[in-house]
């Protein structure tokens, strides 16, 4: 297509208008002539006009027909030209295979990494809440759990919510075909699905009647559960399922791919409202969500919610903390669910963007060299009549083909990544299910490829402009060297800065991970096995039966060969799960309706501290003589002790706001990292299991002198034998439990390190290639210098300094940028300052040394240059 055709294509609407006008005039002339002819033949005036109109027909039809024809022809010409250009580009790329392979791999990795993270971002962030008008969904009071009573009061209060619901995630034990299975799900308020805005595909969701005491127990199942466990039968609606020992009727099936907040939830059970049990109504175990009404916003609802809480405190005579009320929030549900994942993914998106920029800059550098090598071809083509636009189009087509091939490689790369990391990603990002290539992903990759191709194409054009001049034929150095050098150096500065930025961030993350992995969790990890036992549901109704069961189980496990100790706890440190209660001490002054402070509560067996290597700082451990009938006793941790006014708590009492008797503090133990290694220990209270709260499940820790693997099977068998309904999950060495708790940070640090190494190698390859290419270009000049007496050493020295300049400049720019970016990622760092001089210094030194090596290696050929040989060669 010539220049004129390009213009015509882009100016098509204007040309079309002009053509229509011309044709209108032409047809008017034709009509006039025809009428004139008919009149001359003697036809009456009116009849002649009618005949002319009949023959010409509707003028619009002419226009439309011509328009259609023009568009088709235009498209055909355009596609033919594009195909020819791509074919020619393919032949050229095939001729320079080394360039093509390096460029394709570099771009493929760059785009592929980008594509993979975008895919993840799309799945985790953009698809986080697949509900209608999900922006209106909010999390009510995310810092606190609610009681049923409070949830009902919020639901009936007018705080600007269209609907309100609450839920509590639960692990249900479902008995099917005489087998017990653990199924994740939630206890929910009847308005749960309505709040999310989803309906069942079969049956119904919950109604208010389902929540009343005495109503028929019901449940709703996920599509996946219905398909996999209930045989995808519509008749499953109405059938009974035994959930936690209660027969519940299946009343509804949720749609495919619907996940109510968490993708692994499979069952939903309505919790009872107005239960007769006060403890049940007042227990703080629910999370609140709501849907904003159309005419309000989040801020207004938050204000109304705080006002509601003030009134609630007065009405219900509760001891809600005024600080809590003033800090109570109504938060976007999307942000709440994403938590750190969103910010982490933003960081990853940023990292892969840098990887891609470095990859593109690298390929651009190669492209500059390639275009310069073709300067004679361009000049000759121009001389024989090829215009600038034609050459420009050809260069753009080459880069477009390169981009297209690279995008195919990137898809393969992404699929490879998916098979390698899918399991880990599912674990780290709860919303993530699998890598999948959707239309939006293809659109994204097409956009990225187009931008990359155009960027490379325009770089080629900028360099080629110098080569298009005729006088270039007489140039020794080839092409516009000053301009291409500038482009080369600019690209090198950019890549160095981007790459250093990634290296610094990776360094900070690696150091942060190293700091974290050396944190003492406060308990011994070696030679210890942990597993979670789901207490048989039949034992939950009577705590004495549960106590007897665990007593007998512990005795049997402790008697196994190689087992040195075995103990239980409600929630093992660094695993999910927690119970928190308000406590008071005798004589504690509770100002302003203060309800007391919060402590975590864990129920343990006697000897747990010894088995875990937790130090007993004061007092004594639990004893078997502490029974359910004797004085309730408690052991507190050092963090709780430090919060109390009395520094000697032994023999003093604590009272929980759930009621009951005062518990006597009998000991103080050292702090344990219960929640995260990065967090300081929180106040904890340990209760003895015969006197404690039953949660339905217990973690068991077994200390052994034998290899862990050798006792696992025996422990398994013993627990399975202990009760027909006993169920074991989460079997792991205690070391692995600790390692798993920081696995995400390790993964993130490794990912950043991987990106940093990748870009670092690209930059060094770029430096090497650029040096080698410049030496080739200036070998004549250097040969002359050597011939007239310059020493090789001084030449190499000057040469290296000159080449190192853009790298040093890039390092400086990269260091400044790193300081800014690291500030944004501070939340991912643990005990590492944002401006960690060691990391910054190491990264900069590493870069400069590597760049020097990349410059020196090709420079070693300088002493071998001889002017006479070069002159003969010329």
């Amino acid at each position: 297509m010539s220049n004129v055709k390009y213009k015509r294509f882009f100016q098509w609407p204007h040309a079309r208008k002009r053509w229509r006008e011309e044709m209108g005039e032409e047809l008017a002339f034709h009509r006039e002539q025809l009428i004139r002819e008919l009149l001359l033949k003697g036809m009456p005036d009116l009849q002649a006009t009618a005949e002319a109109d009949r023959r010409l027909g509707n003028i619009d039809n002419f226009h439309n027909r011509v328009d259609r024809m023009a568009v088709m022809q235009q498209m055909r010409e355009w596609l033919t030209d594009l195909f020819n250009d791509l074919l020619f580009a393919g032949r050229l790329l095939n001729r320079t295979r080394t360039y093509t392979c390096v460029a394709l791999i570099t771009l493929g990795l760059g785009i592929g990494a980008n594509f993979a993270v975008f895919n993840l971002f799309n799945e985790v962030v953009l698809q986080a809440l697949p509900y209608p008008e999900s922006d209106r969904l909010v999390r009510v009071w995310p810092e606190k759990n609610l009681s049923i009573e409070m949830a009902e009061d919020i639901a009936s209060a007018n705080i600007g919510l269209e609907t309100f619901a609450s839920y509590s995630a639960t692990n249900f034990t479902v008995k099917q075909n005489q087998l017990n299975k653990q199924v994740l799900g939630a206890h929910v308020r009847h308005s749960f699905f309505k709040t999310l805005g989803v309906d069942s595909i079969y049956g119904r969701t919950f109604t208010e009647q389902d929540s009343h005491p005495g109503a028929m127990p019901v449940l709703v199942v996920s599509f996946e559960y219905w398909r996999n466990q209930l045989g995808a039968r519509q008749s499953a609606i109405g059938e009974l399922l035994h959930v936690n020992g209660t027969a519940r009727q299946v009343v509804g099936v949720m749609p495919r791919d619907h996940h109510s907040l968490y993708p692994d939830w499979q069952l939903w059970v309505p919790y009872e409202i107005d239960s007769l049990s006060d403890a049940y109504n007042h227990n703080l175990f629910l999370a609140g969500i709501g849907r904003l009404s159309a005419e309000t916003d989040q801020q207004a609802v938050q204000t109304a919610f705080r006002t509601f809480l003030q009134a609630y405190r007065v009405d219900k005579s509760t001891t809600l903390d005024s600080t809590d009320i003033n800090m109570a929030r109504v938060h976007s549900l999307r942000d709440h669910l994403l938590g750190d994942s969103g910010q982490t993914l933003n960081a990853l998106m940023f990292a892969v963007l840098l990887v891609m920029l470095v990859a593109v800059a690298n390929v651009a550098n190669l492209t500059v060299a390639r275009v310069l090598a073709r300067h004679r071809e361009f000049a000759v083509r121009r001389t024989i009549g090829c215009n600038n636009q034609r050459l420009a189009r050809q260069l753009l087509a080459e880069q477009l083909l390169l981009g297209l091939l690279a995008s195919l490689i990137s898809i393969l790369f992404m699929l490879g990544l998916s098979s390698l990391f899918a399991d880990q990603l599912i674990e780290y990002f709860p919303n993530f299910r699998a890598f999948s290539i959707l239309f939006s992903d293809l659109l994204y990759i097409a956009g990225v490829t187009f931008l990359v191709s155009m960027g490379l194409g325009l770089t080629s054009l900028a360099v080629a402009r110098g080569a298009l001049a005729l006088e270039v034929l007489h140039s020794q150095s080839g092409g516009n060297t000053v301009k291409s050098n500038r482009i080369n150096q600019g690209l090198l500065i950019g890549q160095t800065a981007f790459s250093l930025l990634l290296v610094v961030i990776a360094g900070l993350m690696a150091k942060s991970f190293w700091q974290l992995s050396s944190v003492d969790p406060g308990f011994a990890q070696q030679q210890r096995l942990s597993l979670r036992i789901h207490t048989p549901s039949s034992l939950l109704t009577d705590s004495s039966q549960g106590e007897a069961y665990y007593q007998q189980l512990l005795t049997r496990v402790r008697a196994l060969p190689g087992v040195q100790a075995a103990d239980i706890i409600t929630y093992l440190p660094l695993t999910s799960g927690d119970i928190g209660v308000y406590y008071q001490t005798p004589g504690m002054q509770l100002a302003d309706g203060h309800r007391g402070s919060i402590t975590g509560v864990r129920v343990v067996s006697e000897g747990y501290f010894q088995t875990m290597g937790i130090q007993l700082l004061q007092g004594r451990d639990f004893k078997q003589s502490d029974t359910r009938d004797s004085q309730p006793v408690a052991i507190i941790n050092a963090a709780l002790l430090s919060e109390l006014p009395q520094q000697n708590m032994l023999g003093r009492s604590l009272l929980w706001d759930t009621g009951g008797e005062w518990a006597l503090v009998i000991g103080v133990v050292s702090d344990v990292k219960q929640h995260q290694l990065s967090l300081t220990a929180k106040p904890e209270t340990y209760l003895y299991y015969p006197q404690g709260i039953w949660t339905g499940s217990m973690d068991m820790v077994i200390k052994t002198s034998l290899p862990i693997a050798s006792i696992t099977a025996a422990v398994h068998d013993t627990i399975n034998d202990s009760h027909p309904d006993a169920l074991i999950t989460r079997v792991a060495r205690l070391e692995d439990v600790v390692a798993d708790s920081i696995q995400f940070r390790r993964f993130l640090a490794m990912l950043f390190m991987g990106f940093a190494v990748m870009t670092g190698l690209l930059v060094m390859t770029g430096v090497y290639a650029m040096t080698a290419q410049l030496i080739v270009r200036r070998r004549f000049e250097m040969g002359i210098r050597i011939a007239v007496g310059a020493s090789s050493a001084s030449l190499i020295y000057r040469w290296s300094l000159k080449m190192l300049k853009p790298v040093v400049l890039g390092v400086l720019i990269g260091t400044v940028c790193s300081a800014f970016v690291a500030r944004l990622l501070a939340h991912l760092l643990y005990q590492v300052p944002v401006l960690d001089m060691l990391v910054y210094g190491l990264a900069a030194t590493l870069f400069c040394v590597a760049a020097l090596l990349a410059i020196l290696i090709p420079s070693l050929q300088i002493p071998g240059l001889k002017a006479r040989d070069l002159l003969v060669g010329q």
Partner: protein
Amino acid sequence: MSRSNLVQGTLDLMVLQALAAGPLHGYAIVKWIKSRTDDYLQVEEGALYPALYRMSRKKWLDSELGLSENNRKAKFYRLTVKGRSQLSHQTDAWIRYTSAVNKVLAATVGRA
């Protein structure tokens, strides 16, 4: 003589031939074909103008505005070098085609 529609694919050839002698506007092309065929062939305007447009796009024809015999502004078409070569090519093809068809018809008549 009754009027007949054009044989498919012959319009381009006739338009090119009409313009071989010199520039003509659309109406004159219709008249030229009509007179040369003794009113036997009638070119439909609905086919002529799209064909003129198509041939212009293919660079067979060039056009410019001029004055008609009755001093009206009209668009005159003329053959380009490419159009002339196309005419020669199409004429050869047509002659070969019609002579072949004639031979077939002659043979058929002989056998009958």
